[in-house]
């Protein structure tokens, strides 16, 4: 699938084929995509734990449920628990110097290994770890979110359905899966083959660019060029909005397949 179509096709998928496992190679693709994400100071923020529903004990499975995820958890065959490691700065000094040695961060832009040691580490990272818990959390959450964005799009590109959910039963998860204390929960990503059509009822509603994006200053909305919009429709970044005409029937049929409320 082309890049723009991947972006345009991504939906939160809530109907999976519970009988169809996800191939391990596709999970690897998802994780590699996450591992290639942009990351400030080249630190390793995200941590991911891949678990298959069929391998969970009843007790652990029950602890994962919450009022908003029960059906999704029953249907998705694979779960990826996303965390960030709150000790991400521990290796950041060496990771950053690696970028200097690899000619990524160069003298042209003021970088040197000495700068990393004397300034970035001594005057930024160390005080940050000591005094700026909110800043650490903010940075880790944002950077992990960027990685998860890659993971979502990679899943779509692999023909999978995927959706993010809040993580419930964190204490049980820590115990059952030996999650280190320094890992902080971010999202639970459900993965599986979609039962619903790839369009999942149509592209989700979004407000025009001009509502949220600005140009020059924040009183001047970014106005979309209709010619570009048309090009994005052709490339399927912009797709037919929902609800598609068959959506009611599709949902009813899927509900009946699993005996769910209509």
């Amino acid at each position, binding site marked *: 699938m082309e890049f723009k179509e991947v972006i345009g096709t991504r939906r939160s998928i809530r109907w999976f084929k*519970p009988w169809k496992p996800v191939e391990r190679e596709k999970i690897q693709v998802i994780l590699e995509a996450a591992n290639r994400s942009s990351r400030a100071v080249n630190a390793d923020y995200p941590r991911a734990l891949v678990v298959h529903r069929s391998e969970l004990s009843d007790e652990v499975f029950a602890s994962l449920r919450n*009022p908003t995820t*029960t059906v999704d958890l029953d*249907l998705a065959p694979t779960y990826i628990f996303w965390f960030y490691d709150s000790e991400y700065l521990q290796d950041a000094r060496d990771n950053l110097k690696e970028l200097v040695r690899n000619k990524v961060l160069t003298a042209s832009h003021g970088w040197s290994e000495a700068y990393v040691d004397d300034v970035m580490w001594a005057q930024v990272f160390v005080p940050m770890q000591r005094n700026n818990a909110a800043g650490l959390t903010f940075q880790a959450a944002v950077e992990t979110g960027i990685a998860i964005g890659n993971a979502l799009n990679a899943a779509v590109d692999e023909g999978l359905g995927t959706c993010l959910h809040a993580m419930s039963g964190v204490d049980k998860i820590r115990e059952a899966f030996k999650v280190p204390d320094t890992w902080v929960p971010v999202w639970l990503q459900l993965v599986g083959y979609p039962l619903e059509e790839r369009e999942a009822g149509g592209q989700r509603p979004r407000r025009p660019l001009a509502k949220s994006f600005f140009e020059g200053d924040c009183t001047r909305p970014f106005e979309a060029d209709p010619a570009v919009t048309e090009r994005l429709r052709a490339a399927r970044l912009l797709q037919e909005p929902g609800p598609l005409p068959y959506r*009611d029937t599709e949902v009813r049929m899927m509900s009946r397949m*699993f*005996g*769910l*409320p*209509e």
Partner: protein
Amino acid sequence: MSSSGADDIGQCPEVRRWLTGSGYDERPAERAGVLDSLRGFCEFAGQTPGELIAACLRSTSEGMAISGKGRRSMQAAIDEYVASRGLAGRDAIVVGNHVRGFLIHNGVFIQGPVSIS
């Protein structure tokens, strides 16, 4: 709760909201079945449809909110109801989810089991 027939409750505003929102009103053959599930549950619980909804809610300073305790109790009552009817497997799930569907269309966020096997 009267047991004179499914249409007793079919005219309640809360039930009307469910039947209209779910589309059962347009499918009379199915409508009778789901109403029977709800009527049976009302009799089992000794509550009207409106009382079932109220049992899942609590009032707050900002208005009505879902009661976690009430919802858990309702889940347990639904499970007991389908068991009392001698239902098991998919039949139990479907009938229980009829009741949950009524609650959902009246603003109670509740999810039930999935019939996969």
